[in-house]
């Protein structure tokens, strides 16, 4: 299969839009990806032809809706290569998934138990653990960051103790682009009897993720970053572990029986899916991953890497640019600052020229503290971006720097 970016772009109606008189150059894919027509169509079709609540009614529409929702679960199972479809739990997104684990796994933790995370985590993989520090007196430890944006994994042996119950780590850093060697990390943690949660929010859209090959115990991601809709995400968990965990929220769908005295809980996956879920979101996420599975992810990776190398080379032509995150294995994320210029000024002037980037701390304040900076400008790429767009981005950036640097 030949990788034809122009053909891929055709599938994304939003990429044809203008910002004022400039064509949109969307380089904020780390925040959310744009949606292909098939996903947009699927959402519309659901509301036009299939809308009903699931797992409840015996009527025609409820059955169609339930079937399609469960079909989406199977698509996601197959995409992640999970053993069973009931290992796939629908959530609201990555943050919700981590909070579910922190709440349910957290109920099994005792004072002094340790959760190991890293210095490069998104706040959503820090704060839920901090809350358990307050609630249960657990201890949070960090795998430290190195200057080049990689983790210092030489510390791992020392950090993993007999109290380390869980290691929660991001696959790819949203701020720095660092691709962590999670397979090795998982292996080491398992040797120590520690369970591992992978934050795959930034990886699924860029690289193939096989949960059996990785042997991770838990994995979370968001639908909206993998070409699906917002408000839906996935928690994958190994069956044995999910069975051990107590439920998260109580309500409809997650029960077997409810009397006035007590509740017995439903089986997986429903045990963790209280209330009416984001039905259309789940179905459209299935569509998104089905669409993505039509691509050879190695080709996608190679193309995105080419974009990253090109953008890195071009941005270095601009005087005063400093790149943050120079890991050997790096995803298509370019975090940078320009000497003596505030990142918000650059973000504002890039926006005026149609270029969408993110400025700020990217919800990773410990990383910013590590480098002693308030934030960065982040251009994050997807495989629908082109070298021409990078050229336009660099031209716009040069113009902004000229205006601001005087």
């Amino acid at each position: 299969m030949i990788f034809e970016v122009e053909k891929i772009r055709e599938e994304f109606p939003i990429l044809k839009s203008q910002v004022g008189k400039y064509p949109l150059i969307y380089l904020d894919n780390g925040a959310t990806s744009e949606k292909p027509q098939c996903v947009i169509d699927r959402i519309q079709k659901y509301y036009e032809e299939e809308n009903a609540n699931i797992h409840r009614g015996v009527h025609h529409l409820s059955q169609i809706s339930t079937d399609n929702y469960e079909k989406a679960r199977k698509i996601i199972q197959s995409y992640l290569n999970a053993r069973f479809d009931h290992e796939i739990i629908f959530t609201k997104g990555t943050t919700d998934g981590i909070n579910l684990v922190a709440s349910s796994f957290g109920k099994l933790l005792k004072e002094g138990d340790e959760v190991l995370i890293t210095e490069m985590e998104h706040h959503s993989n820090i704060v839920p653990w901090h809350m358990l520090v307050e609630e249960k007196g657990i201890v949070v430890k960090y795998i430290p960051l190195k200057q080049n944006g990689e983790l210092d994994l030489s510390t791992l042996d020392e950090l993993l103790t007999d109290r380390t119950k869980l290691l929660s780590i991001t696959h790819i850093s949203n701020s720095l682009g660092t691709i962590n060697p999670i397979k090795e990390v998982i292996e080491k943690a398992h040797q120590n009897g520690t369970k591992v949660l992978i934050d795959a929010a930034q990886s699924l859209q860029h690289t193939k993720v096989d949960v059996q090959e990785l042997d991770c115990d838990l994995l979370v991601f968001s639908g909206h970053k993998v070409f699906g809709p917002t408000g839906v995400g996935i928690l994958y968990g190994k069956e044995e572990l999910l069975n051990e965990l107590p439920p998260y929220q109580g309500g409809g769908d997650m029960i077997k029986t409810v009397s006035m005295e007590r509740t017995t809980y439903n089986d997986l996956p429903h045990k963790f899916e209280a209330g009416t879920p984001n039905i259309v979101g789940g179905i459209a996420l299935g569509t998104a991953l089905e669409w993505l599975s039509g691509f050879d992810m190695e080709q996608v990776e190679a193309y995105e890497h080419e974009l990253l190398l090109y953008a890195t080379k071009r941005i270095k032509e601009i005087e005063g640019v400093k790149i943050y995150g120079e890991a050997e294995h790096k995803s298509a994320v370019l975090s940078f600052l320009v000497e003596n210029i505030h990142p918000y000024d650059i973000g504002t002037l890039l926006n005026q020229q149609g270029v969408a980037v993110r400025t700020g701390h990217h919800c990773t304040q410990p990383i910013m503290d590590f480098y002693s900076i308030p934030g960065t400008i982040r251009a994050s790429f997807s495989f629908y971006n082109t070298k021409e767009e990078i050229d336009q981005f660099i031209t716009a950036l040069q113009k902004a720097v000229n205006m601001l640097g005087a």
Partner: protein
Amino acid sequence: MTIAERESELIDEFSFYEDWMEKYEHIIELGKSLPLISEEHKKDENIIKGCQSTVWLHADLQDGKVIFTADADAIIAKGIIAMLVQVLSGNSPQNIIDAKLDFIKELGLQEHLSPTRSNGLVSMVKQMKMYALGFNMKA
């Protein structure tokens, strides 16, 4: 000049520029004329909350008029606070409290500043009016 007259002066100035990049260039230019806050007042309690960049604002009452000085670590924010200072500084507290500041809308500033920055603009106006209110209550 009244506040309203100063506002229309600014609107006139900006009407020369069609392109928003040029308007921003002018905003940056205006920042250079901002009466700078003295070092002694450039402290944490004078930072305007709700801005994505750091903006310091100080006010003095001289002969019944409020004199604003300010600074910012981002150039565009500095330009924006400079515009507000240009319009409001040297007026009585009551006039500042009553100022409608329609020029912000006229210039399309709110639309063209990102939501976070637009919040910053709102915070700047609020802080300036708070100073005026404070002076009014003391008087």
